[in-house]
């Protein structure tokens, strides 16, 4: 690819028919119940929802203690039964059996359509059973896959305390538990990070987005290196440790699908949103940290060297992906960040499918994608919102990309036609944030390439008889 090739100046956006497959947003329960350890998630929906969690996500059986279905039956739909009484009965049972710190009601398409007033019921119910109830509408009418997390976190934004709410110092100490997490293994008499001189004096910073605990630790340490103290994470490990949010506090997202949470933080809690590319890949991580530094007027230390070092360590993987093309069918809303990182790795991206494109919340990421493409001399990808899987598969057949990142429904059929695939959901569940985890992303990306190159001599490329119609 030479720089002389004429290229479109701006990213091209398109919106297709929306006939595509992705997971239902209630799937967020699968990772959020693990993240928030004292929670109970109650999915209020039909057999369709329950069977999805059980058989397609395959998680229900392991989760028995901390999430369940409130299965709506015909009598519920036809309003013969009283929603309030029914939910109360279930919540009392949950309280008796599990006694969680919070019950999260996950509303579904069915509760939307029958207009079950969950937000209206919750306050009275929570008063009666004595457990907070958070209501999130993670329905497939409005949202796709990972946006389910957005609906839950947006609902939790209102439950974060202000510093006025916290009267006793023990309360405050408890909330700093995650700081202790960072200090484990050190002597207990180490001064609390609060008073530590290694931090600059800056406004409170809260990070939102659900990531596994090792990522929480890594990202908190990454900012600590710059003298920035993370005031809290939304969500925290426990519901009782939700971060303190005051007017004027700064917030920054770690996941690209949290636009409602961002809006809620700005509008309802009057927080200031730091808009940055997402910390996925060493390039994104550096940009994310730099942006926080620049907002706080701090000169970042050693970031360029750190990024360069990571890239150096990735060279074995980069040699495999360089010059190859990757096609995103669109599934989990991590597509833009992953595409930007992979372009930086030397790949080309003909098309990025994405369920929903919030151009404001993802503005910095889109700008970095554009910049990266220009710098790498790669053509700008076409971004297709609400894609049409049928048309995409035809385009894939035509352009024969080296790798397709796709939802689970299409992976095996594409492999059978000799096209390398990787499940997009693996990026949802893997630890992909931060400097060190760039390696894990490339491990995932290169696995089909490495596997299939080891099979290539066997002549097993096409495992369907005629080129079946798609």
């Amino acid at each position: 690819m030479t720089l002389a090739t004429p290229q479109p100046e701006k990213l091209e956006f398109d919106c297709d028919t929306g006939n595509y497959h992705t997971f239902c947003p209630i799937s967020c329960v699968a990772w959020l119940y693990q993240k928030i350890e004292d929670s109970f998630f109650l999915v209020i929906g039909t057999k369709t929802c329950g069977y999805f969690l059980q058989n397609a996500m395959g998680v229900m059986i392991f989760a028995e203690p901390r999430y369940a279905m409130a299965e709506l039956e015909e009598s519920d739909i036809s309003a013969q039964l009283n929603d309030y009484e029914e939910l109360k009965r279930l919540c009392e049972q949950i309280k008796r059996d599990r006694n969680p710190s919070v019950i999260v009601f996950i509303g579904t398409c069915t509760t939307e359509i029958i207009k079950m007033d969950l937000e209206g019921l919750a306050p009275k119910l929570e008063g009666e059973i004595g457990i907070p109830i958070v209501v999130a509408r993670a329905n497939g009418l409005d949202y796709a896959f990972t946006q389910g997390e957005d609906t839950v976190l947006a609902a939790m934004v209102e439950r974060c305390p202000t510093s006025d709410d916290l009267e006793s110092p023990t309360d405050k100490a408890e909330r700093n538990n995650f700081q202790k997490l960072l200090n484990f293994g050190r002597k207990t008499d180490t001064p609390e990070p609060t008073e530590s001189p290694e931090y600059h004096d800056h406004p409170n910073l809260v990070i939102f987005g659900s990531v596994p605990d090792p990522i929480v630790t890594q990202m908190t340490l990454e900012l600590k290196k710059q003298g920035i103290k993370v005031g809290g994470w939304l969500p925290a490990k426990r519901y009782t440790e939700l971060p303190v949010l005051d007017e004027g506090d700064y917030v920054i997202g770690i996941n690209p699908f949290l636009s409602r949470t961002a809006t809620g933080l700005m509008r309802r809690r009057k927080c200031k949103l730091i808009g940055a590319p997402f910390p996925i890949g060493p390039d994104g991580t550096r940009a994310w940290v730099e942006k926080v530094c620049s907002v706080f007027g701090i000169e970042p230390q050693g970031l360029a060297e750190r990024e360069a070092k990571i890239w150096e360590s990735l060279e074995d993987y980069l040699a495999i992906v360089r010059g190859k093309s990757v096609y995103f069918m669109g599934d989990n809303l991590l597509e833009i960040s992953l595409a930007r990182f992979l372009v930086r790795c030397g790949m080309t991206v003909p098309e990025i499918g994405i369920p929903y494109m919030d151009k404001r919340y993802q503005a910095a990421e889109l700008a970095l994608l554009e910049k990266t493409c220009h710098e790498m001399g790669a053509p700008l990808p076409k971004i297709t919102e609400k894609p049409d899987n049928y048309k995409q598969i035809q385009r894939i057949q035509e352009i024969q990309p080296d790798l397709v990142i796709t939802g689970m429904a299409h992976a095996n059929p594409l492999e059978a036609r000799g096209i390398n695939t990787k499940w997009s959901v693996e990026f949802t569940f893997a630890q992909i944030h931060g400097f060190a985890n760039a390696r894990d992303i490339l491990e995932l990306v290169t696995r089909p390439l490495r596997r299939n190159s080891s099979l290539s001599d066997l002549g097993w490329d096409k495992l369907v008889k005629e080129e079946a119609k798609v």
Partner: protein
Amino acid sequence: MKLAYWMYAGPAHIGTLRIASSFKNVHAIMHAPLGDDYFNVMRSMLERERDFTPVTTSIVDRHVLAQGSQEKVVDNIVRKDHEETPDLIVLTPTCTSSILQEDLQNFVERASLEAQCDVLLADVNHYRVNELQAADRTLQQVVQFYIEKARKKGELPSDRTEKPSVNIIGMTTLGFHNNHDRTELVKLMGDLGIEVNLVLPDKASVKQIKQLPRAWFNLVPYREVGPATATYLQEQFDQPTVDITPMGIVETARCIRTIQKVLNEQGAAVDYEAFIDEQTRFVSNAAWFSRSIDCQNLTGKKAVVFGDSTHAAAMTKILTREMGIHVVLAGTYCQYDEAWFRQQVSEYCDEVLISEDHGAIADKIATIEPAAIFGTQMERHVGKRLDIPCGVIAAPIHIQNFPVGYRPFLGYEGSNQLVDLIYNSFTLGMEDHLLEIFGGHDTKEVITKTVSADGDLNWTADAMTELNRVPGFVRGKVKRNTEKFARNHGHASIDVEVMYAAKESVGA
């Protein structure tokens, strides 16, 4: 509202889609919100299907909710007709379309005018039937549609095939070991000199449906999918139904004898006794296993059986009649099939349980403490927690039910496979003797009635050391028995003395 952690049978639309996508060149359109088409994932991932699943969702979003779907569903049907030229498009209702009360029949009629293919609305009430009932109903509906169509055109064949022939009805995609059962039954029919007229619906074309009346009889191996179609064909064409599941040596023989009777009545002088005898005593290893010394050690062992009606009933009979195993409890989640199930198993077990509540079964298992469980993935999970082995004999479907190797459940090879499953599910040999020494065998009284009841008893250090000397694979059972004894005798803590008293009392 029902608090549910687990469900044994899926929602109705899964049943309809299993039928539609089993046929060749049939497409299904779902009227549903984003994400409800996870059937595609199940088929592609669990069954490792190479082709794209022929199911497309016409998405219901906020916009459709506000304005009605108007042209969207019709457009999607017509579009799919152009793109894929299927023989049939099945419009599949979902829980969402049911409560939206959209007139799907009207969509179907409008789409039929434009589309080249046939268009059919699956007639299932999403809130009243489950996956299995919906599958049975949809298959019957598709068959009726094409029989009536052929009748109108005067294309129905009026004669039976020259030689004895059979339709095998009920083989579907995402069915429990259906792909291997199909192969085994086709082979069995071949051995009996019976031509297979049609296997339905798996890999069949809807164009072949009008040939169904040519068969001499219909074989319906599963209770869950197929009976409605067989009943319809019997009414329409006086075609006899054989609905004995050929699972296990005894039932396979009974099935073959019934087939013989059906054929004899139609004038074919077949006699399968010699074949049955040869298979039973010399070809299949299952009958020999029952007589072998290994199986002797299974005599009187306790088992719990739970699954769909077909597999749970058949398994109960095999364990009791062919292995001499004591089935304490036989149960099914097919509540709608209770009468049949009770009638089938009552004489072979102590207790019958009909329930969709996995907790009820788990509690029963904890109370009974069987030596092995034969159940679904859920019972396997319960067994793991209680340290009781479990052989999986029924859906809900799991990727493990699509082994790459050949593992039928039906016919003579199925009987061999079942012997292996049963034998490997029990503790064996030396392990068994150790259990005996430490009182691992069945005790009379039980306190721990639920799975979740946790130990509230203290073990002294000595007792703990002693317990740790017990071999690992029986330790759990010894611990439970000792705790039961301690509770019964009012010991607050367990020391070595209590432990050995427990052992003695078990022996007594």
